């Protein structure tokens, strides 16, 4: 016997085809919709949804009895239209993450038949068994925990064995990837024009958020790997291409402008103003591509992940480290100034617990991935553009 999804279910899983069909059948023309009272209210909810997604907290998942199906499905759809209009990849990423996590919260308490229907709707198996290697890697490569690494799985004849506990996380990841891959939606310019006040509001809120997250540059909160690079440059060492790239991109990402970055590089005895300016401007986006600092994994690949400390074991990106450290500093936890003197943690075993606690007092975001895929790609891309082999 197969279950069916009712309207309350669609409120919980508004990305399902059924939900979108249901809305699109009832909306009429978009300009009319947005000028109606109902449309305006729905748009407000959409803005709220994006704000919540931007803050990156745990999405609220009120009980089904408190869900208004219309409101949820519309807010979901309008939020996606809005972020598409902003053309901001970061927002699209955050919103997709938010939606996936929200759905996962509902799925956790769902009856098996309904869970199976949702899984099927996003192209996932309903129950444990195995997944083809390709599909598994596409999902698991974005999940941080070591247990997801392919090397730690049972792999045979092109299939990866799954346990019962694996499916919820993989399904959530599948939803995230699916939703992100559909963005930006092809929204007609006229609609974006109509929504431009809301889009402006979102952009302003995001500016504020970024300012709050990164604020002024605090060298004391730099992760050890970046500190090593800045020290190296100040002491006149020659940085490798990947080191120079990582440092420049990091400084750019935390809000230093090209001139400030140049000043730092100018401390090096072999400072070449013209060359440095070119590199800095290239990495900060003048060439049309804005680069993001490499993830911890990429730093390790290039052998520039150095001086790992306790906090490093909890993040997968130097920017996450910086954010977390800054937040700790703000909360009056003296740890911001504490030297990162823990030995390179093995990461295994219960004994690691004490190390974790030092930073455990403050909430370290469980940053599963930042946007490592793109980061890695861009990093590799920069590496192979050939500046280093001219």
């Amino acid at each position, binding site marked *: 016997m197969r279950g069916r999804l009712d309207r309350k279910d669609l409120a919980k899983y508004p990305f399902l085809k059924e939900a979108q069909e249901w809305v699109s059948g009832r909306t009429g023309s978009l300009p009319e919709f947005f000028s109606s009272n109902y449309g305006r209210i729905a748009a407000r909810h959409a803005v709220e949804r994006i704000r919540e997604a931007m803050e990156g907290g745990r999405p609220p998942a009120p009980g089904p009895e408190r869900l208004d199906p219309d409101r949820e499905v519309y807010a979901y759809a309008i939020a996606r239209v809005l972020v598409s209009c902003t053309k901001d990849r970061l927002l699209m990423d955050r919103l997709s993450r938010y939606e996936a996590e929200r759905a996962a919260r509902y799925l956790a308490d769902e009856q098996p038949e309904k869970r199976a229907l949702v899984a099927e709707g996003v192209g996932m198996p309903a129950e444990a068994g195995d997944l*083809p*290697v*390709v599909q598994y*890697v*596409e999902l*698991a*490569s*974005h999940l941080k925990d*070591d*247990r997801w*690494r*392919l*090397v*730690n*799985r*049972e*792999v*045979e*004849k*092109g*299939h990866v064995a799954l346990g019962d506990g694996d499916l919820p996380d993989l399904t959530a990841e599948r939803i995230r990837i699916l939703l992100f891959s559909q963005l930006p939606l092809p929204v007609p310019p006229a609609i974006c024009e109509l929504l431009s006040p809301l889009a402006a509001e979102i952009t302003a809120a995001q500016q504020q958020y970024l300012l709050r997250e990164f604020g002024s540059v605090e060298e004391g909160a730099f992760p050890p790997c970046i500190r090593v690079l800045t020290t190296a440059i100040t002491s006149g060492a020659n940085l490798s291409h990947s080191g120079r790239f990582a440092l420049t991109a990091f400084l750019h990402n935390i809000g230093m402008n090209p001139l400030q970055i140049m000043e730092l590089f100018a401390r090096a005895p072999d400072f070449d103003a013209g060359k440095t300016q070119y590199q800095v401007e290239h990495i900060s986006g003048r*060439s*049309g*591509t804005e680069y993001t600092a490499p993830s911890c*994994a*990429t730093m390790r*690949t*290039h052998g520039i992940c150095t001086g790992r400390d306790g906090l490093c074991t909890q993040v997968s990106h130097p920017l996450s480290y910086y954010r977390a450290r800054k937040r700790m500093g703000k909360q009056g936890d003296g740890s911001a100034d504490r030297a990162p003197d823990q*030995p390179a943690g*093995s*990461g*295994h*075993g219960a*004994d690691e617990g004490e190390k974790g606690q030092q930073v455990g007092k403050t909430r370290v975001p469980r940053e599963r991935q930042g946007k*490592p*895929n*793109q980061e*890695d*790609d861009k*990093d*590799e*891309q*920069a*590496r*192979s*553009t*050939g500046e280093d*082999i*001219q």
Partner: protein
Amino acid sequence: MKPATLEFVKQQFSEYYRRSRISVPPGLEQREWGFIFLDPDPQKTAMRRHLAFGTRGEVTEYLRTLVPAHAFYSAAYYAAPAASTMGEKGWTGADLIFDLDADHLMRGPYDRMLARVKEETEKLLAMLTDELGFHRRDLHLVFSGGRGYHIHVRDLAVRGWGSQERRELVDYVCGTGLDPRAVLGHAPTRAPGWKGRYMRAVREYLMWLGGPGREEAMAHLTAYEGVGKEGAARLMEDLDRVTSSLEAGDPGPLLQYRAFRTIAAAGTGKLSELVRAGAALADEPVTTDTKRLIRLPTSLHGGSGFRVTPLDLSDLGGFDPLVDAVVFGDRKVRVDLSLKVTMPLLGSTHALEKGPATVPEALAVFLCCRGIAEIAGGGRG
């Protein structure tokens, strides 16, 4: 490289390109190309890149006219491969590449390195097909012309993958990131993949620990940072019990020992060696770089003069690079060696002293390309 030597190598390469059929990769017009030219100054290795060709004829013409020392094309497919920035190129995907280079495995005589890297390649091919499930028809094996092999995986399902997805595969074949708690679960030694390999490595390690020489074992254990005398002694006392539990499918007792966990996580030492022996040690950055330039099969490697040789998977066993990748003949050439060399080539072993010598043309090309000989005074003898 002296002008006469450079002229000699260029002439040999030119002859090869004139008489040979050059292969080109599928998706030719979406590939970027790059070339490095012969230069008297070995420090000057400028690559001319961001080039694109529409037909095999154009590629062949380029090689015949300009006679580069090294020829590469992009593993990536681009909308506009000749554009000068990555943004404008428009990346649309890339072949999945594995690079096995003896340099990363061992030091030693060239022929020994080649033999060692061949074993590694065989392990890698087995993992790619039996475990990861790639079709043999999608795997393209190439002798690199240097000290290793390249495997080009042309499977549409992975063409669009980014670095992160590719990293999962290269970490898998290299055994990077193995977590004992995850792989030592109820795994019999015959279990497929890493469960079995890791289990076998750990069992062998425990047997090695329990072998003759407790002093030696203690010294080994306590050499790890974080393993104290007491912890090591406790593990040694309990060795039989944890081994039999492990054999019975319960790694719990072993994993309780902090000493073992520390050693398993260390990445160096005996256990790590045993684990790595089961791995196929491919060069990680090559696989994760989605814009890599890779040597053109059927071109010549300017550092050896050997042919970058495409191989059928089934031919790997019988392939001898020092015979099968050699494209030059045995006309006599006078060279001047800068050091003493013993080198097997085309079935005979050449033991050469420092100084002038007359050698077969193929060996002369190799020695000149390696930078250990120059063409002697009057050129060809």
